[in-house]
């Protein structure tokens, strides 16, 4: 019971934190929040389904560019574009994942790296004359919510973290649904899952598409937060960061992934004092954390089923 109060207290303090943090730290928290949602959507593919996916920035990019193009060309309000960005990313994910979904482990990994690089190169080369090349797209408007323009770091803090809270809730429900259990089965033993009648290709594809849908929506948030997007923000290295967040936090664990984003996005900011050496310290921290917690910082607890409630 005590533990429950503690968690609520932490949440409360956290939600009040913009009141006593300065703009910089609020913005750090915003970045952590964005990465946490992205990592959660990747976690669904990588952690829950066990697909080695290192190209998540591609879906993020598709979402962000959809928002940017439609907003700057047709002036559609940002908030209306949220589902639309998600759907575009999901369609894109379906098209690219369809032929490669049968690839195993590391082969899937390299193909997803290939996808994220192809997307980046396409953006740089101003594909269809829409993406603005390496300049990117600027002048994306801010979200308007009931007459309030979301633009200050504090506004974004609530915007992002409420979105994160909703994502946590939905991903938690999904994970414990029949569908989520099937994905988990695929992760633990693909052959056995197939043997018991799980259509693995279909389930994997759905996992991919759902993860991409969510990443596309985060793309919308990111685009309206930055107001300018350019291909540099969607490199292979970005995907590597999401990947590391999931594995380091504890693959398959929602709390672990959120904690992982605090570490991987927060730490480099704490290390700013080291100036040039900060990335070195960051790399060392990654190795050390992995050695001491190979299963991740907060691995998911084993699934428990109440015997009385089965059937």
């Amino acid at each position, binding site marked *: 019971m005590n533990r429950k109060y503690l968690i609520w207290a932490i949440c409360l303090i956290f939600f009040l934190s913009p009141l006593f943090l300065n703009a910089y730290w609020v913005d750090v928290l915003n970045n952590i929040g964005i990465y946490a949602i992205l990592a959660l959507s990747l976690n669904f593919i990588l952690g829950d389904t066990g697909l*080695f996916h290192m190209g998540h920035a591609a879906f993020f990019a598709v979402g962000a560019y959809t928002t940017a193009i439609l907003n700057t060309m047709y002036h559609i309000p940002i908030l209306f574009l949220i589902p639309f960005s998600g759907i575009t990313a999901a369609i894109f994910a379906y098209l690219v994942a369809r032929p490669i979904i049968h690839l195993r482990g*590391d082969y899937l990994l390299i193909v997803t*790296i290939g996808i994220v690089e*192809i997307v980046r190169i396409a953006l740089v080369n101003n594909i269809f004359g829409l993406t603005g090349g390496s300049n990117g797209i600027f002048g994306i408007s801010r979200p308007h919510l009931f007459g309030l323009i979301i633009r200050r770091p504090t506004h974004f803090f609530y915007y992002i973290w409420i979105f994160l809270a909703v994502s946590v809730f939905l991903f938690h429900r999904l994970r414990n649904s029949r569908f989520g259990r099937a994905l988990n089965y695929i992760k633990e033993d693909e052959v056995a899952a197939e043997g018991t009648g799980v259509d693995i290709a279909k389930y994997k594809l759905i996992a991919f598409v759902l993860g991409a849908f969510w990443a596309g929506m985060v793309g919308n948030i990111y685009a309206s937060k930055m107001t300018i997007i350019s291909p540099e923000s969607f490199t292979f290295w970005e995907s590597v960061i999401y990947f590391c967040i999931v*594995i380091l936090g504890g*693959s398959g664990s929602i709390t672990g992934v959120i904690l992982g984003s605090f570490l991987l996005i927060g730490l480099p900011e704490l290390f700013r004092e080291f100036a040039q050496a900060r*990335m070195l310290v960051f790399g060392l921290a990654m*190795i050390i954390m992995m*050695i001491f917690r*190979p299963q991740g910082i907060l691995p998911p607890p084993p699934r428990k089923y109440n015997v009385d409630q089965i059937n």
Partner: protein
Amino acid sequence: MELFFQQLTNGLAIGGIYALIALGYTMVYGVLKLINFAHGDLFTLGAYIGFTLLTSMNLIGKIGPLPTLFLFGIIIMGLVGIAGIVLERIAYRPLRSADRLAAVVSALGASIVISNSIMLIYGARFLVYPHHILPNFTINLLGMKIPFMRIAMLLLSIILMIILYLFVQKTRIGTAIRATAIDHGAARLMGIDVNKIISVVFFIGPALGGAAGFMVGLYYGQLNFMMGWMYGLKAFIAAVIGGIGNIPGAMLGGLLLGVIEALGAAYISTSWKDAIAFFVLIIILIVRPTGILGERVADKI
């Protein structure tokens, strides 16, 4: 047509380097099933050690350029190989029984550490190898002008690869490496010291990468602490195209990738060059899910 062959030779020279680095990936993968993302940075390390040796010791005046380069090459391979062993001890061995992806994250961390250490030691500016060490003349071959050094480089890569291939196929240690790659447990039961074999692999792979770094430094002359990332990624693709874990596959994949890039740039578009390379990779994997020479692994039931 002349242009085609000219571009083909350009691609082969680039591909030779990719192949040499890809061997390191493929050997490590074969034995540990680990994608060693720090491999590209060990390549960078080789290039920088070469720079230090060339600028600090004036051996060329005393024993002539060729013996000097040979000697330096051996020293670099030794040092980078030792760095590889140390890397395995620190960053990978504690994770051997853990989930495979944990080691991947550790490898990414190691990559950041190595490249940033190089930046802190040598500075972020581009470094340049001393000029005029290598003979610089072109050979006329069937109407094409090919710089001699490009041919020499390709030959040297192929020689190193053949030595490695013979080593793995014909010697006792090579047999032990192959046995370990198939099954750690069974190899241990046959009396093979698996830890030692893994150390050997982590010596040879990075040593070849270091040699490639030295060659790139000597020929292209220009170093930067980030150079390993791009080469490493390309070499990784090369290893996968050929079938990761397979030594002839890495050679084939490297040369093929070099040629695809060159021809893609020549006949389609230079700015889409890397995208073309990735596209071909994806097509190859869709058609042959384990690479060109990769073996179909039976599912464990």
